[in-house]
């Protein structure tokens, strides 16, 4: 059983939703970012999405664009992101890590080498924003062959005709992007999320995590009642942007993570 399957199975038994946290690897610098990464599980993160910085994050809003720039300016590379996961796994074998980003840095690194190293350091899944199922052969197929889950984004524009194609090769969980827009933009109503999840469930048995526009413990709690996972990214990343020092960045991110975790854990599923 993969770490993602294991984690979602445990939470199902507990009767609660997962808190999925996103941070950009190397933001605001390698050491502080690693400290945040290592601190997230104790602060209540159940699954960690680790962003691989890319100069041209076309689907991201300002918060994650700036996080990406901070990381790149501090010298982050894909090799260093893999190294971060390796260091994280020294004392954590249970929290799943999903790498999230754009295809070009992986393409440049070499797909074969990337998949082998990602598996070796303990990466559990991949979310590649600009690789739709039409391009599965490039990365999804080799990654899954190596035992790394490939997590699909489904969106308000993914209609019933297209949905089976998108879900066909999904594994780990399904990410529902609750608003048509960039990360960190407006949030969807619970009514919208509720009916969207109902629609997804007709097509898949995988756990469903909902993201985009979720910023507060209250919002997280509301979504946690509906889905198996709640993704928070821009709000955490904003804490780093607003911090005056690296220590403060670490403290503020973990503090918000704890508050979000309380929200999610307090919302027992009906």
């Amino acid at each position, binding site marked *: 059983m993969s770490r993602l399957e294991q984690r979602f199975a445990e939470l199902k038994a507990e009767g609660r939703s997962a808190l999925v946290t996103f941070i950009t690897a190397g933001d605001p610098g390698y050491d502080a970012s690693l400290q945040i990464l290592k601190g997230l599980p104790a602060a209540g993160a159940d699954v960690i999405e680790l962003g691989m910085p890319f100069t041209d994050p076309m689907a991201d809003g300002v918060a994650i664009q700036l996080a990406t720039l901070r990381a790149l300016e501090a010298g982050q590379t894909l090799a260093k992101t893999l190294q971060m996961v390796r260091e994280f796994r020294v004392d954590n074998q249970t929290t799943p890590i999903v790498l999230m980003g754009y295809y070009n840095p992986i393409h*440049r690194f070499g797909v074969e080498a990337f998949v082998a190293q990602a598996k070796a350091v303990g990466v559990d899944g991949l979310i590649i924003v600009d690789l739709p199922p039409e391009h599965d052969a490039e990365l999804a197929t080799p990654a899954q062959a190596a035992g790394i889950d490939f997590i699909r984004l489904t969106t308000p524009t993914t209609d019933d005709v297209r949905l089976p194609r998108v879900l066909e090769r999904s594994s780990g969980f399904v990410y529902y*992007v609750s608003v048509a827009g960039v990360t960190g933009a407006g949030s969807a109503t619970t009514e919208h999320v509720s009916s969207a999840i109902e629609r997804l469930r007709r097509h898949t048995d995988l756990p469903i995590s909902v993201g985009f526009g979720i910023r507060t413990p209250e919002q997280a709690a509301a979504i946690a009642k509906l889905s198996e996972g709640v993704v928070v990214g821009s709000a955490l990343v904003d804490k780093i942007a607003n911090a005056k020092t690296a220590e403060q960045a670490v403290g503020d991110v973990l503090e918000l993570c704890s508050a979000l975790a309380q929200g999610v854990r307090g919302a027992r599923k009906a």
Partner: protein
Amino acid sequence: MTQTNFRAGPDANGLFGEFGGRYVAETLMPLVLDLAREYEAAKADPAFLEQLAYFQRDYIGRPNPLYFAERLTEHCGGAKIFFKREELNHTGAHKVNNCIGQVLLAKRMGKKRLIAETGAGMHGVATATVAARFGLPCVIYMGATDIERQQANVFRMKLLGAEIVPVTAGTGTLKDAMNEALRDWVTNVDDTFYLIGTVAGPHPYPAMVRDFQSIIGKETREQLQAKEGRLPDSLIACVGGGSNAMGLFHDFLDDASVQIIGVEAGGHGVDTDKHAASLNGGVPGVLHGNRTYLLQDADGQITDAHSISAGLDYPGIGPEHAYLHEVKRVEYVSITDDEALAAFHTTCRLEGIIPALETSHALAEAIKRAPTLPKDHLMVVCLSGRGDKDMQTVMSHMAAQEKQA
């Protein structure tokens, strides 16, 4: 050369060889698939084609002339040089050929709002123009650096009623404007038509933009046939994203006797880190919805392009060019900022035509080659745009040179 089907691409997945494709976020996938279906239907619809032909003739002013550049020919003392006069089109460049096609498609699809990215501003002006003509609101994303160096075009767009959104992310040039336009599109999925200005982006854009521009080559073939009774021996066009070049080249790709040359922006030289020559100085990668040659570092981060001409200042190139480069059907060379400026002045003085700085790259290559070729060699240069927009850039460059001297 044994292969003769260079015009076959793209395949159903939008691939030219291994280049092209649809590398976009899932939110946009249904939109690009829909666009591909709608475009296929439109180009098979005689009513659509008739409408297109009407606007090409009565609004753009096509066909524009194929002009024998007699004094430049004499000056070079070799090949007979012809200019395909795209700068005489309404709005002053080839860009409007594509914009008319796409706005007609947008209207056909019932879209209510146009968005576009622009570098030098010529595509922005052409988009703002068709938006005004067809009564659609229009938002143009333009890099802050480009707004600074292309103020005349910014003012033109405003006069035409477009909203201009400055983009400060990255280097504030064309690639950043394209990122921002994609972010707008992903946010406004229901009513917005993204009018991409070059032969790049996710399928069907590279093929669709090429098709709308291919009238350049078709007219050239007929006009040269009428003047000289035969095919050209060589074609030369500048390449940023590469839409004027694909427009001129496409009709001739399977005519093996026609030598085809694309000219990239060499900036300070392709051996420096200040150029925009994706084929001569880049490697394959994935950006803005397609696989193509890109300027990037060892970590796969996109690096900044540099060119004196804002329209060529882009770290990628259309995927069909990447393919034509790999199969060696088209030869891609580069011209530096200084060489382009010299050709700009030569063309002004000898032909009474002020070319765009983008176009000056193609002219520089023509001026380099023509003297080495026989007098019966027929060379066609795509005069893709006029240089009025570049006065400020040329003025400051001349002032800087005078200071140095």
